[in-house]
């Protein structure tokens, strides 16, 4: 037995097993909130933190090792491998899950799930939760297609059960079914991709796939299948429809893991296939994820802006971020395929950085919606408001998340967007006519999506936390408990640190880009506070300096104002142009705040309006916004499947004699065939 100190891979596997054990331990007393809901989740958080530390050390040390596990089928043991790519994503998994688990320890107090008798017991929830975590870890460590698919399916199933925690609600069952369906469509595509990747050797270890020789057409087919499969999991348009249904349906910590971490395993899968298994991606492959990613980013941002449910809003914002990540991957493939590994490393660095950022900031915001949900029982933005007074700690911590997600300096969301924009600006150097013209235009789409993200976050934060409470019941909202605060606080701290120490993060990600693109992320003009990873250019960004100078200026301003003038404050009624009769109803609702977006991007939506007429006794205003793809793509698809099923049903008579006849005819035909041969 290898000691865990010398082998980070064995240690990681042991931690994954520990997660499983924690999950199983919950079954001993599943209805005990203190034991199954609190203590076990804290142990799970510790395991997550340990995983992050071990993976980070392996990443910095540049460890690559593999191990064959004696589990699985007799001839198909699980191959596992830890390299820079899997370490980086393990850090993401461990760190995000640590924060989420601590929050969960305070969150699952059984109130919503047990009192109504409608949900899953905390112990069972813990089992699903920890199996989900462990399977995500195994996806990242798998080194053969068999282990990968087993872990992938385990991840899909355990997360399905998390999504349908409140399975008595029909909408949630529907969302879960849609999720399961899309997960399996994606899984089939991935399976086919692996089938091509083995290249006729029938060896399904990743090592064999790395050395297999594929013709260009087959390689492209494998890449596109993998893109579809992983894209379906990540929520790439047009496979995104399950995401805004399933993510809000799950309990908030599970939503956080789904959005923050699980989407990134899909990103990991695509990176693994495109850059590792298919050694040399052809440049034009990159155009597909680039175009799809940009479309997805815009689509997600526009839809997020018109949502009225806070968790759906965040789910659409996840789609936007996935789009940015896939655009980065596409750009990296194009750069690598046209012989600029340094630029590919830059684009990959932006992508990986964004994965990390999105994991922490989206988890933070989903968790804070959980706290709001617990405190108010409301998910509808139109019934919230003014919570900054009732829930100050949640308000402050989610402000950090909202500003980060809006991509504002000096927080973390800005750094990865900056890197992505910088790499887009090199698009003009691609030695392919026409493409070199179009790719810098992609920067425009990224800029538009990023700016829309700012709009979305102002809406999210402003409507939930600012203004006057829109419902009288909000006066009884309470701030979240200490464990929830710690969980939120850790994630907010991660947002700040990832934003302020980009140089160190980039240095840590450098082994990954070296593995995938063959080029490290070099600092040009090395200083510890000035991020300058852009090759051939003298461009830098120092968030610490910006924050420091800004802080000094603000402090000086406060001081000067107090010194030269005074700090007197008088409280009075809101001025509001002297109007006087101010009611909470006069604030913008979520619909109102999204109205400009609805007007500008009309063609994106299918809008159904019900407008009151002047003669109505009880005027009603209703507006429904739907995804055009539902009617345009999925409903015809569903009808086609039903039609096909009906066609097959013709032979299914349900009578024994008919089936016996089928058998008889088949046998006779086979006999005739054998005799003829």
């Amino acid at each position, binding site marked *: 037995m290898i000691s865990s100190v010398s082998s980070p891979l064995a240690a990681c596997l042991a931690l994954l097993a520990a997660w499983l054990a924690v999950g199983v331990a919950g079954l001993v007393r599943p209805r005990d909130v203190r034991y199954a809901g609190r203590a076990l989740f804290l142990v799970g958080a510790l395991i997550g933190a340990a995983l992050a530390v071990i993976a980070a050390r392996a990443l910095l040390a540049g460890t690559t090792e593999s191990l064959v596990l004696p589990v699985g089928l007799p001839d198909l043991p699980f191959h596992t491998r830890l390299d820079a790519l899997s370490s980086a994503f393990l850090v993401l998994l461990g760190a995000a899950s640590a924060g989420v688990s601590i929050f969960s320890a305070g969150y699952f107090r059984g109130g919503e799930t047990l009192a109504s008798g409608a949900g899953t017991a905390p112990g069972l929830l813990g089992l699903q939760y920890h199996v989900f975590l462990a399977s995500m870890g195994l996806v990242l460590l798998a080194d053969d297609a068999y282990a990968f698919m087993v872990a992938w399916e385990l991840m899909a199933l355990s997360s399905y059960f998390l999504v349908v925690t409140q399975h008595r609600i029909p909408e949630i069952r529907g969302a879960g079914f849609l999720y399961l369906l899309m997960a399996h469509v994606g899984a089939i595509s991935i399976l086919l991709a692996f089938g091509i990747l083995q290249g006729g050797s029938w060896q399904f270890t990743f090592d064999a796939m790395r050395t297999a020789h594929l013709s260009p057409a087959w390689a492209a087919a494998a890449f596109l299948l993998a893109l579809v499969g992983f894209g379906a999991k990540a929520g790439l348009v047009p496979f995104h429809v399950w995401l805004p249904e399933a993510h809000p349906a799950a309990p908030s910590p599970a939503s956080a893991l789904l959005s923050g971490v699980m989407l990134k395993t899909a990103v990991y899968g695509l990176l693994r296939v495109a850059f590792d298994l298919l050694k040399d991606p052809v440049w034009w492959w990159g155009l597909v994820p680039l175009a799809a990613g940009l479309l997805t980013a815009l689509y997600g941002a526009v839809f997020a802006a018109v949502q009225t449910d806070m968790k759906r809003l965040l789910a659409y914002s996840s789609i936007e971020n996935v789009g940015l990540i896939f655009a980065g991957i596409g750009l990296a493939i194009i750069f690598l395929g046209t012989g600029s590994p340094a630029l590919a490393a830059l684009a990959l660095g932006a992508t990986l950085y964004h994965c990390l950022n999105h994991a922490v900031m989206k988890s933070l915001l989903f968790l804070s919606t959980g706290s709001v949900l617990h405190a108010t029982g409301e998910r509808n933005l139109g019934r919230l408001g003014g919570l900054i007074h009732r829930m100050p700690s949640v308000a402050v911590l989610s402000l950090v998340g909202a500003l980060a997600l809006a991509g504002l300096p000096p927080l973390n969301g800005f750094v990865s967007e900056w890197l992505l924009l910088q790499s887009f600006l090199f698009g003009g150097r691609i030695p392919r006519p026409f493409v070199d013209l179009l790719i810098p235009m992609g920067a*425009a789409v990224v800029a538009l999506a990023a700016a829309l993200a700012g709009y979305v976050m102002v809406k999210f934060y*402003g409507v939930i936390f600012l203004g006057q409470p829109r419902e009288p019941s909000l006066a009884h909202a309470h701030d979240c408990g200490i464990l929830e605060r710690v969980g939120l606080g850790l994630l907010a701290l991660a947002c700040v640190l990832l934003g302020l120490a980009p140089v160190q993060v980039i240095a840590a990600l450098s082994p990954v880009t070296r593995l995938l693109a063959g080029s490290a992320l070099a600092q040009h003009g090395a200083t510890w506070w000035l991020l300058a990873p852009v090759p051939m250019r003298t461009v830098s960004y120092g968030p610490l300096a910006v924050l420091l100078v800004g802080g000094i200026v603000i402090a000086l301003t406060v001081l000067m104002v107090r010194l030269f003038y*005074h700090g007197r404050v008088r409280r009075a009624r809101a001025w509001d142009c002297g109007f006087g009769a101010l009611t909470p109803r006069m604030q913008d609702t979520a619909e109102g705040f999204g109205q400009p977006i609805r007007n500008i991007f009309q063609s994106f939506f299918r809008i159904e309006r019900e407008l009151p007429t002047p003669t109505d006794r009880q005027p009603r205003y209703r507006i429904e916004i739907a995804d055009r793809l539902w009617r345009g793509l999925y409903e015809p698809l569903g009808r086609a499947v039903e039609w096909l099923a009906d066609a097959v049903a013709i032979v299914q008579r349900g009578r024994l004699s008919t089936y016996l006849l089928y058998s008889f005819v088949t046998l006779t035909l086979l006999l005739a065939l054998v005799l003829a041969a």
Partner: protein
Amino acid sequence: MKTAALAAQLLEIAVALAAAPLFLGWLNQCRAWLSNRRAPSLLLPFRQLRKLFHKDAVLARNASPLFRAAPYVVFGTMVVAAGIIPSLSARLPLVAAADAVALVGLFATARVFLSLAAMDVGTAFGTLGARREMMVGFLAEPALLMVIFVASLISATTALPAISEHLATRTLTIDPALAFTAVAFTLVLLAENARIPVDNPATHLELTMIHEAMLLEYSARHLALMEWASQLRLFNYACIGFALFIPWGIATREIGPAGLALAVPILALKLAAAGAGLALIETVSAKLRILRAPEFLATAFLFAVLGMLVRGLLGAPPSP
């Protein structure tokens, strides 16, 4: 050397703080002359700031700490931005900390805080203003980024001082790409600084205001800081325009007192010209309906995209 650079940095910030209200005063004077009114004093913005600072602050009862902090954050952001933009000198210590993209990010930070503060009290006007401001912002921000990208494709960097140095030192040709982007930039400047055709800084007419609607609940020192910050924003935008389109006269090579001493009057000259030009545009154009503002900004965006396409199609203009 270090202290000289630091002194130059502080001088630049001080000049920005002083020049921003003056620039607005000059703009208002020009507008008054152009519309045959008697012009107010150049120093009027200063007097207003002074008056506001002396007053007692009145806050709405349900104003949160965010409402009180926002003016300081917005003002601080604008001061940092003023320190980053090469208005007097291109060789300042702070410029390495933020390139043009980060600068746009800083503007966005200020805008987000302004909008959040406007939503804080929960009045109809506040949220209306915030929504409109964010609408203008999310359309103007990509346009501004595209303007910067065109300039950065020409000069192969997104660092503003390096861009302006590169543009100032090359041979003088009319670059069609830059011409398109200059138009785009002017449109963005008008929109982002709440000038006519998108917003009317002089109005308190409920249905048309954007910027003023957000400031309705502010008074005294908070209002003063917000006003000063928006004056700084106008000044900053003007200086970005100078750095991109008329970069001559910014002290580049050395941070000697001589270079700076020359840069100050040149900046004043540019500001005077820009103020007169802006006043002319504002006088001859009418305010757009708010529903038309997206078209206005889409035009700006398209001009910038055209600039980029022209740049890509024609390549670099002939070099010496």
